């Protein structure tokens, strides 16, 4: 073929997810089809109960869909077993959470080393790559600080370093700025945009439209269906400008 189009990173085809709570069947996802290309930054929005968390769990390989097909980087995920899913999460995905989810009483560099540990990377190499990831998020000088010695913004940077240390294709962020003040939120979004420029695809679950403006695409969920899916020119996160706002 003359024209080379990059294969989409995420291909979701008629995915449904049904939970059983006692006698009641909960249709968290009814019928979702979605294609996300590499290096896109997609904000998933929607009220609680709309299915956006479930969609994130499925896309993040934490959960398997009840029906439909989900291909991640060309690989069908919906039929994989728990061990292969774990390996996929380790190699292809990076997670960032609202509450940072760093291990307590563990230093920043040790937190960042964790995914490398499960990937079987040897000690010296592990340390080097963890330090490199911390440098990248601007915390090279905080490597041996414990989470209780760091601010929320710094903790989230450690979490981002941990998510990107395995050089993932997809970074899944669940309300990453939910516990941060607006200035720090902009700093974190600036960091995500910087990572996006290196080709990492970002999946951002948020209910704040301010935050969604930094994404290149906004998907709104409602009652387990995609209500709207639109592309936009992302707002460039500028911490210096945000300083004045805060």
């Amino acid at each position: 073929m003359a024209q080379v189009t990059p294969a989409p990173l995420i291909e979701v085809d008629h995915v449904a997810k049904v939970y059983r709570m006692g006698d009641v069947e909960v249709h968290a996802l009814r019928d979702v089809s979605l294609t996300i290309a590499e290096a896109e930054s997609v904000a998933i929005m929607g009220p609680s109960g709309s299915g956006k968390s479930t969609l994130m769990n499925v896309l993040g390989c934490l959960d398997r869909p009840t029906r439909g097909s989900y291909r991640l980087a060309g690989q069908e995920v919906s039929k994989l077993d728990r061990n292969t899913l774990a390996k996929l999460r380790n190699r292809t995905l990076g997670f960032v959470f609202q509450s940072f989810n760093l291990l307590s009483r563990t230093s920043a560099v040790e937190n960042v080393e964790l995914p490398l540990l499960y990937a079987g990377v040897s000690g010296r190499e592990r340390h080097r790559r963890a330090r490199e990831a911390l440098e990248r998020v601007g915390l090279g000088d905080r490597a041996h600080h414990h989470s209780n010695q760091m601010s929320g913004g710094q903790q989230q940077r450690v979490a981002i370093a941990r998510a990107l240390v395995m050089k993932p294709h997809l970074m899944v962020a669940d309300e990453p700025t939910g516990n941060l003040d607006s200035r720090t939120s902009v700093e974190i979004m600036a960091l995500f945009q910087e990572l996006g420029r290196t080709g990492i695809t970002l999946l951002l679950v948020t209910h704040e439209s301010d935050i969604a403006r930094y994404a290149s695409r906004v998907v709104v969920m409602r009652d387990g269906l995609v209500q709207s899916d639109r592309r936009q020119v992302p707002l460039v996160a500028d911490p210096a400008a945000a300083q004045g706002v805060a």
Partner: protein
Amino acid sequence: MSVFQVLRVAIRALMRNKLRSFLTTLGVIIGVSAVIAMVAIGEGAKAKVAEAFASMGSNLLIVLSGSTSAGGARGGFGSLPTLTWDDLKAIRAECSAVRYAAPQLRSSASVISEDQNWGTSINGISPEFFAIKDWSVASGVNIAQSDIEGATKVVVLGQTVVEKLYGPSADPVGQTVRIKNFPFQIIGVAERKGQTALGQDQDDVVFMPYSTFQAKIQGGLQKFISGIIMVSATGSDDIDRAEKQISNLLRDRHHLPIGGDDDFSIRNLTEMANAQEEGVSTITSLLASIALVSLLVGGIGIMNIMLVSVTERTREIGIRMAIGARPRDVMAQFLVEALTLSFFGGVIGVLLGLLGANRLADHFGWPVLVRLDIVVIAVSFSGLVGVVFGLYPAIKAARLDPIDALRFE
């Protein structure tokens, strides 16, 4: 993750709750130390019993006369003299499995020194007696064959008798004592022998030639041996053979009909020693199994704490799973934690058990015999306890759903 990595993570997790980890291990520590101490003490007691029996003589058989039966009242073994001096000679000459045979005639009498007296056991013996008993003199000389032939009035004193008559650490060789009004020259002092397995003081004795004993203590030579014959077999494997040979010989010499009762009796001290040691072993096993039960209780303690730990760290498990820990990584982590607890408990328990066994042994005056196999078994068993009781919590952790685990508050 490598084994070393898993171990490092486990130790770090345990060190975060030092007191709790220690208290959890305590059950295993107590269990293992109890097993080690009980077995060490039991083995010590067994050795003590064996030693006591060995002090009574090596490969020893005792031949006793038959019993009297007068008007329905039976007098017990030795009450009717049936063994003759010719029997003794025949045993020495004809039984190939017998190394030594010696008579032991016994009576009680007062021994009088210049300024003291002491009632003790007077024994008429032949020189082989000391060989049978693995005994020798500490000073002076032993009773010799010439003393038997000449019926000389010489004695060898036991240590207790020396102490009672002359005071401790005296050497009365060359002095004279009086027994039944006859003067006897002390030619030797026997080595200290200690107590028998039955608690009898073997040093509270006076030895003299059996011929002298017959003449001066019993009053006249006799055809029958009014005492016992001590026999030493040629080796520990020959004891049963010696017993059979003596039995056949005596039945033949006494013209006993086939199927009739023996008019003598042969005691096998090795059998008695084995029976005693077996008894001690039984008690040791009993104590050790009770201790093993406490080790099991310690294992349940570990399981309890590991279950609490899994619940407490549900969120941590969720994080680890989200960043790529496989179920088996999570399982290994908790299993190794349980194993580390129980293994260190086992090691500390061994050290404590050895210390405790030493202390108790000092207290009872027993030797302590640490059996390496028991140490290995106790430590491996504590490891096994860790695996068995750590398995369920570890599986529980591995089965957690990463989404639920991450949401857990």
